[in-house]
């Protein structure tokens, strides 16, 4: 602080006694003296430097709260980025074509299989060939089809013109060298069913092959144009030894089954889903035929036929999405159809779920990612577009080549893309696509998830496996939050407002001095205690005496009105013995009695009207199922927590209405109630409004009560007897387990930010309303 300049403290207008102090005099006086005075001056200057620094620091830290939430949330909505990493060529003999291209998880190793049976491992960073091996095929044999699995992803198979099939797996070995602390990854191929191709016994030359399964159970199916199908199942027992020593595992046992299909003669593609349950045939005419694999091996080759409703499907590009619960099938006009697997017993074994319009002509390639429900398509002009199936949105797009590329592969993590743009010419792209499954619709709209009958709002963050779709709809959570707050306000608003009106206007001030601190004590009750009582004491008691709770609703108002009537009918001298504003004391025993009565009559009433059990009557007659921890319990417990908040502000607003207004009204002949209703309430209404807003804000953000006294099930049901899951409780449950910077983590931050903004907004509105009220009072 510069001591030459006057440091003026100007109070804002609403402060009554605001000091305006200038520091100049003291400082200039001190300038002349020396020694101790100089130290004092220095001290003052240091303080003038440190206090603003500290103060601004604290305020910035509080501001940081919001900034940090935003900082964690924003990446969710940042679009994916893509950059060309490198391009290289591989020396390959002429006339050789790529059958399969893949990127491995470890390091940046690419894999390429060509139709002459050569498998190459490539270092994608440099384009260097790491190793190359020939598949063990006979000299004169020709590969007629190649296929690979989605699920585990590394199982591959080729079928040969000789009717044989060869299954192989990519593997790698990691070595650590101690000298330079480098690790080297050596990729290689293994042949789980042996190096000799297995004879499938086909009649014609098989042109379509399907493979599925994992280490211990591999299923192969081959089709040839005569309609002959061979299915082969290789199984082995997994014992404890084989997990330690792969060599110790037992040999595969092979089961086969073959049958002839009545074929329409057109080209077919066969597929096996990763659960090894069904064998699917897709034909060019858009027909679909499904077999139950278990039945096939039992000798029953009955099939179910369906029509897909797509003309000219691009069979060779058909893809499973990871988890194999949905199939992607492009058609000839550049659309990709997503179908959900629905079981062949259902009316519609493949439910048409979504259509992605990618181009206006047939696609060149389509690959799906292994870990997420993402897929990438390239059209004939070399324009790449990537989509996320769940959120139904395009994640990125780029022009990758002038024409259609020959092959494409995406790394399992979706962070690397390899393309063969021209024969033997490769380009590698780096992709940063951290949160493809998030879009505005995915968070707030209805989404049709795999395995569901229709689009719905669902929150289910912890999937059962890698391949299951995470379901991040914030709608059920927001709904639960609003529901809990609604029921809480239903109890708290009338009680607190009425209480505030009585306490602020009618109550004798001697009594008021005792009542106010008691109700303020409610505010001090930790919510964890309320939650505990609500969840473990009230909920079972309510369940036991549900009818009594409803009895109170009837009996209580009646008994209060009756008491009031009875009191007014009493002779005047008795009535006057109770001073004004002490009615509450009279009512206490009445209410206790009414409550007791409600419990006493509940059992006879239950037996008389509800066959002895109100709850089973509810579910039988009204179809309401009673859940022990429900919205009613929450309403009461959270209402309890909110009452003091509303009460305090509302009472302040009413009691600070200038008294002369009410005196004037009373003097003109209005009854106390009339002057309250006509004069006091209209004046205080902004205060009451702001009280309700602050109460609502508290109810929305309350965590412990909801956490302990609801079942925390994210359902969308406004029923009084059902539970809910709120945003706040959801954060408390899930954030300790979510991985840092994962989509789930960021969505929980988003939930926190929604809560923050909402309560902050509500409180600001309440504060502004309150300030206007104060101005109004000062004008009266």
């Amino acid at each position, binding site marked *: 602080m510069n001591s030459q300049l006057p*440091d003026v*403290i100007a109070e804002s207008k609403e402060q009554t*006694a605001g*000091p305006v*102090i200038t*520091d100049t005099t*003291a400082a200039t006086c*001190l300038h002349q003296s020396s020694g101790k005075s100089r130290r*004092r001056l220095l001290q*003052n200057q240091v303080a003038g430097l440190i*206090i603003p620094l*500290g*103060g601004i620091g*604290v*305020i910035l830290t*509080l501001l*940081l709260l919001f900034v940090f939430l935003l900082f*964690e949330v924003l990446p969710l909505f940042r679009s994916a980025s893509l950059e060309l990493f490198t391009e290289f060529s591989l020396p390959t003999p002429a006339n050789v074509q790529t059958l399969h291209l893949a990127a491995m998880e470890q390091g940046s190793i690419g894999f390429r299989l060509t139709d002459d049976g050569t498998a190459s491992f490539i270092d994608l960073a440099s384009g260097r060939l790491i190793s190359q091996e020939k598949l063990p095929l006979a000299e004169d044999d020709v590969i007629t089809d190649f296929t690979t699995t989605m699920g585990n992803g590394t199982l591959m198979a080729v079928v040969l013109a000789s009717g044989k099939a060869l299954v192989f797996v990519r593997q790698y070995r990691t070595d650590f060298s101690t000298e330079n602390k480098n690790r080297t990854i050596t990729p290689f191929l293994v042949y789980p069913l042996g190096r000799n191709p297995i004879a499938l016994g086909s009649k014609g030359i098989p042109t379509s092959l399907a493979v599925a399964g994992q280490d211990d159970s591999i299923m192969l199916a081959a089709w040839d144009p005569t309609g002959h199908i061979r299915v082969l199942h290789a199984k082995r027992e997994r014992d404890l030894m084989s997990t330690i020593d792969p060599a110790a595992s037992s040999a595969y046992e092979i089961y086969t089954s073959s049958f002839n299909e009545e074929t329409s003669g057109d080209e077919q593609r066969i597929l096996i889903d990763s659960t090894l349950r069904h064998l699917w045939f897709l034909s060019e005419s858009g027909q679909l035929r499904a077999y139950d694999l278990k039945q096939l091996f039992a000798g029953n080759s009955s099939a179910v036929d369906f029509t897909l409703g797509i003309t000219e499907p691009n069979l060779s590009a058909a893809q499973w999405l990871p988890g194999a619960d949905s199939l992607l099938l492009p058609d000839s006009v550049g659309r990709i159809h997503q179908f959900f697997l629905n079981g062949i017993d259902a009316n519609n074994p493949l439910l048409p779920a979504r259509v992605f319009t990618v181009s206006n002509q047939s696609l060149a390639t389509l690959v799906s990612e292994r870990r997420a429900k993402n897929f990438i398509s390239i059209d004939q002009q070399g324009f790449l577009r990537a989509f996320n199936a769940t959120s139904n949105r395009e994640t990125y797009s780029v022009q990758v080549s002038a024409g259609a590329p020959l092959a494409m592969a995406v790394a399992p993590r979706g962070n690397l893309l390899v393309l063969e743009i021209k024969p033997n010419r490769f380009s590698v792209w780096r992709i940063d696509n951290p949160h493809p499954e998030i879009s505005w619709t995915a968070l707030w709209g209805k989404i049709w998830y795999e395995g569901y009958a229709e689009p719905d709002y669902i929150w289910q963050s912890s999937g059962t496996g890698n391949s299951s779709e995470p379901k991040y709809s914030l709608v059920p959570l927001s709904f639960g939050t609003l529901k809990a707050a609604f029921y809480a306000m239903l109890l708290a608003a009338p009680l607190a407002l*009425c*209480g505030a*009106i009585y306490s602020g206007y*009618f109550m004798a001030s001697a009594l008021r001095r005792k*009542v106010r*601190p008691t*109700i303020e*004590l*409610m505010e*001090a*009750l*930790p919510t*964890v*205690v309320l*939650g*505990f009582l609500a969840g473990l004491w009230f909920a079972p008691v309510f369940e036991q005496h549900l009818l009594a709770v409803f009895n109170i609703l009837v009996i*209580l108002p009646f008994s209060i009105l009756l008491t*009031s009537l009875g009191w007014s009918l009493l002779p005047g001298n008795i009535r006057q013995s109770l001073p004004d504003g002490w*009615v*509450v004391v009279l*009512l206490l025993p009445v209410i*206790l009695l009414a409550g007791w009565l409600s419990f006493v009559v509940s*059992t006879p009433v239950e037996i008389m009207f509800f066959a*002895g*059990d109100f709850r089973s009557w509810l579910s039988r007659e009204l179809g309401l199922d009673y859940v022990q921890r429900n919205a009613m319990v929450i309403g009461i417990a959270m209402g*309890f927590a909110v009452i003091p908040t509303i*009460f305090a502000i509302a009472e302040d607003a009413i009691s600070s209405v200038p008294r002369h207004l009410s005196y004037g009204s009373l003097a003109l002949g209005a*009854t*106390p*109630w*009339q002057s309250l209703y006509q004069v006091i309430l209209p004046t205080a209404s902004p205060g009451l409004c702001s009280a309700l807003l602050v109460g609502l804000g508290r109810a929305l*953000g309350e*965590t*412990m009560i909801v*956490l302990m006294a609801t079942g925390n099930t994210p359902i969308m049901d406004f029923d009084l007897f059902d539970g809910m899951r709120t945003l706040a409780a959801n954060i*408390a449950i899930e954030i*300790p387990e979510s991985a840092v910077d994962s989509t789930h983590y960021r969505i929980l931050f988003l939930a*926190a930010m929604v*809560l*923050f903004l909402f309560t*902050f907004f509500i*409180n600001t509105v309440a504060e502004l309303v309150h300030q206007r009220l104060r101005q109004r009072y000062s004008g009266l």
Partner: protein
Amino acid sequence: MKVARLQNWAGSGTPFIWITASAVAISLIMVVGLLSLLAFKGMGHFWPKQVMQGNYNPPIASRAIATSEFIGERVQFEAVAAEQLADNGFALSLGVDTYQRQLVKFGNRDLSESDFGWIVMEFTSDIAYPADIVVLERRRWGNLYGYMESVLQQAKEVVPNAGDQSTDETLWQDFQQRLQRTAQLLEEISLLESRQLARINRQIEQLRRQQSRNELLISEPAQDLDADVRQLSLLESQYGDFQTRLNNLAEQVNRDSVRLITANNQRIEIPLSEIIRAYRPNQLDFTEKLTLFMTKVLEFVADDPREGNTEGGIFPAIFGTVVMVLLMSMLVAPFGVIAAIYLREYARQGLLTRIIRIAVNNLAGVPSIVYGVFGLGFFIYIVGGEIDRQFFAEALPAPTFGTPGLLWASLTLALLTMPVVIVATEEGLARVPRSLREGSLALGATKFETIVKVVFPIASPAMMTGLMLAIARAAGTVAPLMLVGVVKLAPSLPVNGLYPYLHLNQKFMHLGYHIYGVGLQSPNTQAAMPLVFATALLLVAVIALLNFSAAVLRNRLREGL
């Protein structure tokens, strides 16, 4: 006349006034009722209850044994509709609408499958409260109810129970003496373990570390090494001595046991070292009950929890709460006050300051869980992660500060309560009359001196009020703590005798979280309930006290000016 009065009654709005009055009354009943419920349930747990014995013969076809004996304490009592019982398989005679039933704590968790059960009073017989029923509070398996048969020393009966009154009394006396002896031995053992053995262990550890360091530096003179070796062997022999002493003591502790007959003539032998306390509840008079009550309350406040937090005390939770709140106050008090002074005394009063003031005020209304999320994301993962990378790299990937802990919990709560302190302090500063400041400045004091020597003393009650409200809020807040540092059961206290004494990175126990954890997630909720009530009562009492003191301070402040 009556009709006119009635019309007058309705027209004047009196019913509405009564309804508003009843709202106050209902709120009052809710608060008082809830507090009484807490007090009753919480304190009732410690009051020794009568133990009853009886025979139970419910008309249930599927029951294997027709009549069975039971011994236990009554926990709860209620009326139940006959239909509900019929649903549970009771064959009831017609004509009776309701039955009385009670929840009984049978104890003996190691003998029977459930230690609580409902008993319909209609089907009991021979209910009695025998004077010689014994309650054993054990370290494991909860309470045991039964009759004392004999006391055993090294598995041999010393005093058999002949069945008459006098031998019964001698048996009890002998048992009590032996129990006292065992308790003394146990205390000796724990002292040995915690003091002597720990000291020797520490010394040995130091020597070993020094040795391994010496081995790296070969230039050290050999003589030194020899001395170390000699000292080490000395310590090791000392350690061995202690070990034998401990073994001896352990043998002595396990010398005695007691055999009891429980319900249905089951016999069980309990070593005395397993018993914390034994009493005959049906014989106790009021003063004895009161003494027992006080002992139990003391145990609850001062002891460690047992049996998965469902028994014993809550001392670590109290301690954790206090340490956390203290740390938080140390953070929130200076910074909150500085921020308030800045806002009121130094900042230019304009629109921006007004906005900041409203924002700070509104931050107090932001849900606590949001602060928890911030604490987890910013303090733990970002700041803590960076601290780990800079200073504790050798321990990675096991996190030191990059994991929930005491420091982060205190920081998060400091942030949470900062608005409360700032608002209260500002209010106090605003109340200091301008004339005082002007007087001080006119006398030649600097601005800083004016603030410290004139403004502060007047505003300090306001600051104290703010701090106390902050502490009350912090002590009652649980939601953010669940993310930033509390655990259900911490292996050690965050402050203890081991270097560096205050373990900022350690997780700790907390009263509020204890309520949540034990109440909601313990395997035997029925057994844990009374303890949770007691914990809740304690927490409410502490917070109410803090709030009350804040209110008193505030009132004094208002009266003073």
